[in-house]
């Protein structure tokens, strides 16, 4: 599905191709039958690994077959020595890497690799980072590889700081590196969080980032990465809800409340009104028919004797 090339053939070549495909199909179907025999019988052995390796070399997206290999390795974990296990797992990593070379965007391959790293004794996370570097050289927008990289960083002792430096290097080489900026947007809040919003960067780092991103769009004003990142840096996080103004009209027995953030009428209805400690039964309405309102109005009972006093305590409890 990812842009296979078409090649013109003569009738002769077409027939040759057809015969070749028939042969391939027979082999594939034979291997598939043999593999499913193993799967159904739950036979986890070297023969099974051999058969499934053939199948996956032809079709590395065959998730059922990867799962057989997964079960085989889980079986091995309880039956083989650590040395043998390590050898098997390392062979598996080589095999997966070959599959990835032909199919670098395969969900199944990357997913299986995660399984191997989490299951094997003594995983070499440094090596995995190098693998990521390699695949990012082929295609720096390969999000499968970036996601795998985040998995490696999460499970190993790699410091956010080191990863941030890595993104810095990539960005300096080429400012138009959206995936690097994205990676950065996830790492910086870990290293230097905004105390009000864990998804945003703290003030201190914010200014440094602003300078970096300004360099980016001064160098290449057409690069979208920098502008989206810039927008994120400048934007405040979600503002906290608060009442900006509360107007009480005694003659009209009406409260008008304006809020910092717009609310729907459903959210509005959760605001409770207390007059001198007594809860009032109110219905909030909006000022127009927009779904989200900045202001809402509530009518209080005219007969409320509290209106006669000169002092009354009004409290509102917004959500």
């Amino acid at each position, binding site marked *: 599905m990812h842009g296979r090339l*078409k090649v013109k053939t003569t009738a002769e070549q077409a027939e040759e191709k057809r015969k070749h*495909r028939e042969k391939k199909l027979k082999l594939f179907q034979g291997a598939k039958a043999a593999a499913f025999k193993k799967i159904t019988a739950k036979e986890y052995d070297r023969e099974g690994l051999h058969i499934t390796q053939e199948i996956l070399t032809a079709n590395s997206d065959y998730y059922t077959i990867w*799962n057989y290999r997964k079960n085989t390795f889980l079986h091995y974990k309880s039956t083989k020595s650590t040395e043998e296990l390590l050898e098997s797992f390392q062979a598996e990593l080589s095999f997966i890497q070959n599959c990835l070379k032909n199919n670098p965007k395969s969900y199944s391959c990357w*997913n299986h690799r995660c399984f191997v790293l989490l299951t094997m004794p003594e995983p070499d996370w440094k090596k995995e980072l190098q693998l990521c570097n390699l695949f990012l050289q082929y295609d720096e927008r390969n999000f499968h590889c970036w996601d795998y990289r985040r998995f490696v960083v999460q499970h190993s002792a790699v410091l956010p700081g080191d990863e941030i430096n890595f993104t810095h290097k990539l960005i300096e080489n080429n400012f138009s590196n959206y995936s690097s900026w*994205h990676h950065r*947007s996830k790492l910086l809040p870990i290293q230097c969080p905004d105390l009000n919003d864990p998804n945003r960067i703290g003030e201190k780092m914010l200014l440094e980032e602003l300078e970096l991103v300004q360099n980016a769009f001064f160098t290449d004003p057409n690069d979208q*990465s920098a502008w989206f990142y810039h927008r994120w840096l400048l934007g405040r996080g979600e503002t906290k809800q608060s009442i900006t103004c509360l107007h009480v009209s005694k003659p009209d027995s009406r409260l008008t409340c304006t809020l910092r953030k717009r609310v*729907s009428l459903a959210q509005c209805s959760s605001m409770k009104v207390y007059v001198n400690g007594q809860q009032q039964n109110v219905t909030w309405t909006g000022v127009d028919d927009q779904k989200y309102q900045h202001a809402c109005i509530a009518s209080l009972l005219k007969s409320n004797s509290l209106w006669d006093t000169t002092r009354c305590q009004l409290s509102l409890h917004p959500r």
Partner: protein
Amino acid sequence: TGMENTFERKKHIRFFTRILQILPSRYAILDTSRLTVAFFALSGLGVLDALDAIPDKDKQEIIEWIYTLQVVGNKASDMETTNNYDCSHIAMTYTGLASLLILGDDLRRVNKHACLEGIKALQLPDGSFKSSYDGSENDMRFIYCACCVCTMLDDFSAINQATATNFIMKSLCHDGAFGQGPGHESHGGSTYCACASLQLMGRLTTTLSPKQLKRLEYWCISRQRNGFNGRPHKDDDTCYSFWVGASLKILGIFDLVDFKENENFVLSTQDIIVGGFAKWPQINPGNIFAADALHSYMGVCGLALMSLHSLQPVDPTLNISERARLHMQTLHE
């Protein structure tokens, strides 16, 4: 070149009917997802308003074939497996049910309980779904499939909507759109899955704040250069005329799309000899990239969203024709 491309309706009909007859070896890599390919062909014909290109006998055969793929029982339930397949795959369940609806089937032979139990067993504690019980990656695509299955079976009780919504929101990125999961880069495909899932769960405007909706709208509309791309600085690709186009429909701002540019791009990716659409424009008549089922279907739907070429309207959330959706609704009554 300034040449206007014509919409090769007859060729596309033939392209899809051919797929239903035989899948060439080029599709060997998709051997595990034949049902999704069948769905692209069936739904494509539906949107082209050409389902009558399939003889009734063949339609019945396809329906029978789909029912043979129904897996009753998985490791989570006590029911026996009734066929050779080890366990189901959530995308096959979605496209299987959708295909049945498109063919006018009444879903009477669907074991609704087993199906929903199967979906339930795939949801993880973080709210996302894996694709099959034996294990797979888990991400936004499968949340979407789950929501579609629940919609088609008119029963959301099997899924935890709160945790699913939570996972979706955790996948929001700095640029306002959605990645495949928390930490992942925003992408047109995952953004579509997130928007459609929230819409199907009836939670789009109650979950996203007005500010978040605005940011999301901005990111989505920015995907259009001529056609649409799936991420900033990537090439336009036919399928995003649907993934992003449908997202814009769901967000209510599809009218901001430049219809002419979008149409020109999609039509430029047509294979005018074989029919169907490729992901990228055909640079010369000799064809550089082959048309494939997915891009052909998405190309047709991308045009259908703009109500062009007498195409049937497409429901942007379920990704089937409005007609098929209406049929589904009659089954729910």
